[in-house]
């Protein structure tokens, strides 16, 4: 049995092939379908999830190796409100077909968690593993910049609030 924390809930996989990629374990056995099958060989990024906070290709991770690890999918990205990246994707009307976008969002959000103000080149480098045949790269880039602005502004705001509390 393999027990994985998925979107902050424990999920046990019983009696399934331990070599099954996490992608298919999530889709067929955990009811998590935001994660998408595109290539199965780690080339397209449609299956991107977070493993302990890092963006990974779930089609390349045998589920049997993940006991005790923590997975976040696009379904678990929002807190009380949408994640700033999700909100930016809606505001910038990024999606065309939308099939690759859960993976794009997970890569973008992982980038901004570590680098809240990425340069164009840093965005390119972080997003190079996610394919989109509809060609939404132009809008993905603007949405990431908007989300970066929102996250930076919000961080500044909360830092300022905390500073005020401390000084009070």
């Amino acid at each position: 049995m393999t027990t994985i924390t998925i979107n902050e809930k424990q999920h046990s996989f019983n009696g399934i092939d331990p070599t099954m990629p996490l992608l298919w374990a999530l889709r067929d056995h955990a009811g998590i379908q935001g994660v998408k099958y595109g290539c199965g060989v780690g080339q397209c990024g449609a299956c991107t999830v977070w493993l302990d906070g890092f963006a990974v290709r779930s089609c390349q991770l045998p589920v049997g190796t993940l006991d005790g690890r923590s997975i976040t999918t696009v379904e678990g990205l929002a807190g009380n409100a949408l994640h700033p990246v999700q909100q930016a994707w809606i505001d910038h009307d990024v999606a065309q077909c939308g099939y690759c976008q859960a993976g794009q969002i997970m890569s973008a959000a992982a980038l901004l968690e570590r680098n809240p103000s990425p340069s164009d080149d840093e965005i390119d480098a972080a997003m190079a593993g996610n394919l989109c045949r509809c060609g939404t790269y132009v809008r993905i880039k603007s949405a990431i910049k908007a989300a970066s602005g929102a996250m930076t502004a919000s961080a500044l705001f909360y830092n300022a609030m905390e500073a005020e509390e401390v000084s009070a």
Partner: protein
Amino acid sequence: MNQPSNPIANTDRRDFLKISLGLALCSSGSISMMSLASAEASGTLNAYVSINADGSVTIYGPNPEVGQGVNTSLPMIVAEELDAKWDDVRCEAAPVQQQYGMQFAGGSLSIPMRWDEMRKVGATAKEMLCRAAATQWGVPRKELTTADSMVLHSRSGKAAHYKDLVAAASLLSVPDEADVRLKAPEQYRLLGQRISNASAEGIATGEPIFGIDAQVDGMVYASFVKCPSIGGVAKSANLEVIKALPGIIDAFILDGTPGPYNFNIRESYAIQSGVAIVGKDTWSTFKARETLKVDWDLSTASRDDSDAIEAEALAALAAGKVETEIERAGDVGAAFASAAMTADATYSTDFVSHAQLEPQGVVVSAATSAIEVWTSSQTPVFVTSNLVKLLDVTPGNITVHQLRGGGGFGRRLSNEYIYEAALISRRVGAPVKLQWKREDDMAFDYFRAPTYYRLQGAVSTDGQLTGWKNLVASASADGKTANYGAGYRPYDFPGKVIPNVAIEQSFVKSQTPTGAWRAPISNVYAFAEQSFIAELAHTAGQDHRDFLLSAIGDKGWIKEGDMASLNTARARATIEAVTKAAGWGRTLPEGHGLGLAFFLSHSGHIAEVAEVSVEGKRITVHDVWVAADVGQVVNLSGLENQLQGSVIDGLSSMAAQSISIKKGAVVQSNYDSYPLLRMPQSPRVHVLALNSGYRPTGAGEPALPPLAPAVCNAVFNACGERIRALPISKAGFTIV
């Protein structure tokens, strides 16, 4: 295999539009509108519009959504005429039913074929709400106005929300069409605005809305293994070994149906023979394929070799081998004899795959006589009639659900995977989710056909393009007619514009199935034509833009009122707008070049300019400007998205995408051997949506064809090397 008898291929696009429109108008006039006459009060005003108790308005989008935005734009047209408050509109996919007419997504036709119908649907519903209010308040109908889902009577100050009027309105008879007034464009409040995709939040939060996400109770999973060489037949397989593998429920040979396995999307339910593996989850069936051994009978299989096809085509062009004449005007011989300058160049293109991100997949329940299908097909309208033939059932027992498609581009026009799943489901007696692997999707595609052109041009002593010859070498299964997408369409330019024109054709044998790939024929022909125009301009010592404008001329509409026809004023406006925006003629940095192209396809007049720089064989595409006239803008955000996407997709396909065939089998298998453009390679894209006010036409396809010639013309201007074959990787170029 690929036979000529293809109802859609053999139907001119305009006829297809007329047929489609006929059906659509028929449905709005006689079926969906009739459902208005209701015996009981309800929130439903017609087959497309329901007004809910909470004040929200449900509008059904009839056509499949595959990323072209129609499940937002079609409801927008209804909402505009209905004066529904957009924030309260819920866009839903319509069920697949006869009353919704031609439920398909292809040919960039959804908007033009639904434009009148959607407007009338909204305006008729609004008229009924107004009549209900007029009766309730005892005031004349003509004193009422509407806005934001409200009927207003300014003289008395009375106002009512649609939700409070719909019950009474639903009991009224349908107003005469003559009593229903449509808005004038200057009255539009919603059309032309930037509206986010109706499913934007569902997509961003991972809601299970795609074809691949369908699930039903008791469902089993299936994989289907066909012969790599198209048309090969499964004789035997190690089925007992497969059945003993963990997670496997059953394995069997499916005989398939007799071919041809051609792109006949209306009539054909043909499926190839293969081995079905049924399991308790997707992975078990995929893994079992590694153990599967099949003995294939190759006697009926394709023996195509793409290198041989290319060699034969180029030899035919070099020899001037003409088998049929497609088009002739004026005296071509005289134009070339009296020319001040002539040019002669050969262009070639390869097979390409669709490679949409969602591989084919479907859920079909055919275990009982009640058949149910959950699919992201682009042609759900054709599923029922073919299942009737395949399964020998009655149409009334078949229900088709349309789900969002993870990219279409023509790939989902063919439904053979649905028919495979139906046979597997019937055999195992349970609902089946059939999932094609990416490798299946690439191997069994209906590819963009390779096409080859020998172009010759004559420029007169006064610098005018007066003569044009085009010998087209087309892939053909029977040696007499072009396979789907491999032919030539008699375009208004140059055929109806240049005075002396000869378009001729030669055939090269090919059994590989081809089909509709975003902007069929235009997607390869535009590359040849618009590159060659630039070659002629250069050889004649003229500015490319001036030469192109002069060649297009000023005849106005070539066929007045036919939206698919060339309008030289619309063409000129896009070329002038795009060159102005790009700064045509400005001094460029060292190693940079600007390239221009114009093309009309799918009724869209589109001009594009690319700015590139070239270092050795490494091309950087810095910026692309697109000027598009697709008539009245419906959803500006959706239009801009399609234009940006077409540029990226065009660059993706021209860069390094090529399908090679050896012994009838596809060599490439996945994105590692068949690359899509990645973000670091993609340019800035600047969009100019020219709202010309003509009837709106589709935007999914027409912006792709001009991209490759614009980039190749820019490369020539940057480094002096003329690229005459796609993908450009064949000449050693890469996009960085």
